[in-house]
């Protein structure tokens, strides 16, 4: 499970980490994710989800991924239903509290068609942190005494050599590929994040390959004017794809809030018959659209404008 330190360094050494143009299309970026890879997603719940990249992977009929994220929302359902992944590692998995427990997640896990591997939220964070730090584990003080720890593969307790206390060790997570959506970055992959950063910075450092999708590509000069705002460095990034509304129908801080009516539609479509509902949703919004703009058109202009109006309002007094 935990990668050997020298292997990890070797993989890093083999990457072209130079300051070079990495801009490509969604379809080209999808080719950088092999079937069966372990993939980490940036963002959290319905925020800065790398939806466009997942959309491209689903359309490319990729399969067998093991996917981890801080918290999974509707994208987790779509991973299961499309077959892109049947093994999800996360701390919480459902569309969102206001929509109740995900029917699709329930249908797949309760019938043992898919795995939902549960860790505490801090454990997810420290697993990525250990991966980012180049150490095999991190010690922590939660999960003990619960049932969660018994079902978390690789977690184990140790006696602290300094204090004699019992601590929990969680193994490093170094994903093969990280998919992260950001507000802006340059062609080299220097990314500036607005608002909540979630676990993205650690994920980028931990991964052996990083694909950034971005609302817009800005010049390297613009990045260099505010280097303190650069949260993900070009040297970790392998691909840059410009995708406006790349988290739709989820949120991208300061630009658009979640598309609530569409989220309601999704909940309705999957409420009665989760299998059929999710398949219909995938057909209509993932397989049929001719491109990303067509996907957004199908969600609808009124919804998009509403989400954008609410999103930009965060900066109003």
């Amino acid at each position, binding site marked *: 499970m935990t990668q050997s330190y020298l292997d990890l360094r070797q993989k890093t050494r083999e990457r072209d980490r130079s300051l070079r143009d990495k801009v490509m299309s969604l379809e080209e970026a999808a080719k950088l994710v092999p079937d069966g890879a372990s993939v980490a997603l940036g963002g*959290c*719940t*319905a*925020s800065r989800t790398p939806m466009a990249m997942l959309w491209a992977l689903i359309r490319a009929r990729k399969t067998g991924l093991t996917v981890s994220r*801080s*918290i999974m929302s509707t994208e987790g359902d779509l991973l299961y239903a499309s077959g892109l992944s049947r093994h999800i590692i*996360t*701390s*919480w*998995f*459902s569309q*969102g*509290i*206001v929509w109740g*427990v*995900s029917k699709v*997640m*329930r249908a797949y*896990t*309760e019938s043992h068609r898919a795995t*939902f591997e*549960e*860790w*505490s*939220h*801090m*454990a997810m*964070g*420290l697993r*990525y942190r250990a991966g980012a730090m180049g150490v095999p584990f991190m010690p*922590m*003080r*939660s*999960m*003990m*005494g*619960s*049932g*969660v720890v018994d*079902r978390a593969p690789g977690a184990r*307790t140790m006696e602290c050599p300094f204090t004699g*206390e*019992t601590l*929990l060790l969680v193994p490093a997570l170094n994903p093969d590929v990280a998919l992260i959506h950001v507000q802006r970055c340059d062609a080299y992959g220097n990314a500036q994040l607005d*608002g*909540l*950063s*979630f*676990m*993205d*910075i*650690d994920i980028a450092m931990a991964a052996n390959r990083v694909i950034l999708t971005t609302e817009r590509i800005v010049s390297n000069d613009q990045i260099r004017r505010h280097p303190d705002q650069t949260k993900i460095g070009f040297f970790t990034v392998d691909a840059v794809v410009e995708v406006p509304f790349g988290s739709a129908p989820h*949120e991208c*801080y*300061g630009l658009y*809030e*979640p598309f*609530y009516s569409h989220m309601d539609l999704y909940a309705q479509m999957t409420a009665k018959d989760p299998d059929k509902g999710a398949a219909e949703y995938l057909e209509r919004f993932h397989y049929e659209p001719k491109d990303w703009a067509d996907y957004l058109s199908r969600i609808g202009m009124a919804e998009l404008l509403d989400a954008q109006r609410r*999103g930009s309002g*965060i900066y109003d007094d």
Partner: protein
Amino acid sequence: MTTEPVRTAPPLAAVPAYTASELLAVMSARLLKDGQTVFAGVGIPLLAAILAQKTHAPGLTILFEGGVIGPFVEAGKLPPSTNEQRCTRRANMLVSITEVLLMLQRGYVDVGFMGGAQIDRFGNLNSSFIGDADNPKIRLPGTGGGNDIASLADMIVAMKHEKRRFVEKVDFITSPGFVDGSDSRARAGLPAGGMFRVVTDLGIMGFDEATKAMTVVALHPGVTPQAIKDNTGFELPVPADVAVTEVPGDVELAILRELDPARLYTA
């Protein structure tokens, strides 16, 4: 878990001026003290924390799992989770999820505050599996930060008081309370924090100093000891001289309704 809750004495029948959720929010808000730092989940905990800010605790600092420190959430714009931009309104500081959870571990949080699906005599919470974990009847969403908060802070839990939710032993411990009672929590590796109060629509519960079993601290107006007995799946003693809470005030209810006009969390 198939037993439907039986209510012999509906507590709200006599005072239909507020919903059970509003009662929960008001009673929980009153437990928070000015100057405290509270790690709040979305829903009733968030509403209660904002209500406390707007009444007796203007200096209450709210922390959200999404990485938010000290926000003032806007009325009518309640966030659907603790990870959306709405949570960050007028915050002092935004950090990563991992950093905010590490603040909890470092000891900067006074109170952890969340809802619960199922709780047992020792305050253990389940939000993972109904039935056997290997073959669950219902797969629930899981811990999120719940396990971390319950492991590392003094806890207030707000939930509906129903027999199927108040069980002798939870199907699965997602977020540990006092584990098997007495000092078993510390022995499991959790020397700090633990259950402080459980607020329900029937009353306010605490935990015995020595055994760490749940006890009744106060009943809401009109609630009888029999109602506690009928709606609890384990023995929950009501002391003869048990306190009675004060009904939600007009100001408290008005603030809640302004905060949640669409009744997302207070229906």
